[in-house]
């Protein structure tokens, strides 16, 4: 079952987005974990109150507040669904707090033995406030990190700023995270654009991988910004290789790299040409956590190079590239 994370700094429009999602008919089979019922104002949507923590909305969506910790909340909701106390659901959406670092949440989903048997991570959606983006990116390391780990960056409040502000913001967000799809409020963004069209949707896999590399420019040098602009020294770079890779050598190298430097490797997304394989393997991960690799039926394009995007902080891109070359080629 897919789990989507909705994250974003305080006041970035996370709650507004959630409210829209909770009213959407497509969310009728979803469960949403939010911080507080009162923040969103769901009284007019309420159909049934299950207990102090769980309600059911008109759309059929189950809404649950977080308990002591996320793991307990997920397992409790899962148990209630199994027992028929709440309706069955086929998607879980989790709202993080505004100051949250999404990486530990990803770790909980991927590494907890019970949870990972039933759930897998879907898209991470990060809201960015067009009015205050500059200030947030500069002063709040949480914002930069939330952007860095996102699969979808949803720019909100676009109606409150001149078009030129958006034009300036887009490349800045793109440089932080070239692998994320940028979407804007007021442009008719569909529920599927944000949540459902991900790497695990069979008909969307190739498209999702193509999106990762669509945001890159042709300059292969690291998009390196100083710490003042992004709170922390977060930047992205890409490793591209023409010759097929040895899967074992690559796997050992990546395990070592994440063991030693996982804290600083915020996001990895890659398509790999593997020796002996006709179709590509796709990898993606958040810090220490790598998702089970996916296989595509065929290459998305004529480009059959291995390409791996790294979004990192406080680490040398040159040294990673050198190490990759020595270990894997």
């Amino acid at each position, binding site marked *: 079952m897919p789990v989507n994370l909705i994250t974003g700094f305080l006041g970035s429009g996370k709650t507004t987005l959630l409210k829209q999602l909770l009213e959407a008919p497509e969310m009728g089979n979803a469960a949403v974990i939010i911080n507080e019922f009162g923040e969103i104002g769901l009284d007019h949507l309420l159909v049934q109150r299950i207990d102090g923590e769980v309600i059911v909305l008109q759309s059929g969506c189950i809404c649950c507040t977080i308990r002591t910790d996320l793991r307990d909340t997920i397992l409790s909701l899962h148990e209630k669904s199994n027992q028929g106390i709440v309706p069955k659901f086929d998607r879980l959406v989790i709202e993080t707090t505004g100051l949250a670092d999404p990486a530990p949440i990803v770790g909980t989903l*991927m*590494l907890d033995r019970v949870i990972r048997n039933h759930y897998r991570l879907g898209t991470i959606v990060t809201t960015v406030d067009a009015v205050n983006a500059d200030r947030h990116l500069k002063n709040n390391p949480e914002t930069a990190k939330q952007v860095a780990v996102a699969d979808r960056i949803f720019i909100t409040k676009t109606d409150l700023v001149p078009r030129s502000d958006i034009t300036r913001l887009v490349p800045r967000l793109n440089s932080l995270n070239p692998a994320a799809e940028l979407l804007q409020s007021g442009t008719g963004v569909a529920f599927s654009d944000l949540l459902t069209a991900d790497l695990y949707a069979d008909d969307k896999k190739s498209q999702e991988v193509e999106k990762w590399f669509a945001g890159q420019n042709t300059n292969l040098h690291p998009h390196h910004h100083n710490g003042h602009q992004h709170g922390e020294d977060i930047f992205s770079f890409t490793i591209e290789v023409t010759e097929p890779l*040895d*899967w*074992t*050598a690559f*796997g*050992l*190298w*990546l*395990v*070592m*790299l*994440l*063991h*030693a*430097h996982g804290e600083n490797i915020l996001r990895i997304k890659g398509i790999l040409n*593997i020796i*002996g*394989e006709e179709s590509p*393997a796709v*990898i993606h*991960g958040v810090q*220490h*956590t*790598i*998702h*089970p*690799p996916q*296989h595509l039926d065929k290459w998305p394009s004529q480009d059959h190079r291995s390409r791996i995007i790294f979004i990192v902080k406080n*680490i*040398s891109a040159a*040294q*990673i590239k*050198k*190490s990759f070359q*020595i*270990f894997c080629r």
Partner: protein
Amino acid sequence: MCGLCGVLGVEDHWADTLGNQNQSDDLRIKRRREKKRRITIANRFLAFYGVKLTDWPSGGYKLSTATGRTVLLVHLAAFCPQVEALCGRALDPLDTALLDNMCSKAM
């Protein structure tokens, strides 16, 4: 346990199917061959740390030092902390000395 653990020898993991598209191969022979490859590749950098990886007939792997200290691994996914415990050093693929050592051996 990361998602790549299967490629490192966890038999029930998805990645054990990578390269296993031809169902007519003898799976057991193929797995032993792959295990031997993993050991060869791993020893290229483990030598720098004074640790050697070998096959453990009962399943899994054996890590050992020149002084005879050993530890058994069920699978390679956990090799990093075990190697560090054996050799008393942090494993870091970005370590310049390690990379220079691997380069000099490759020449």
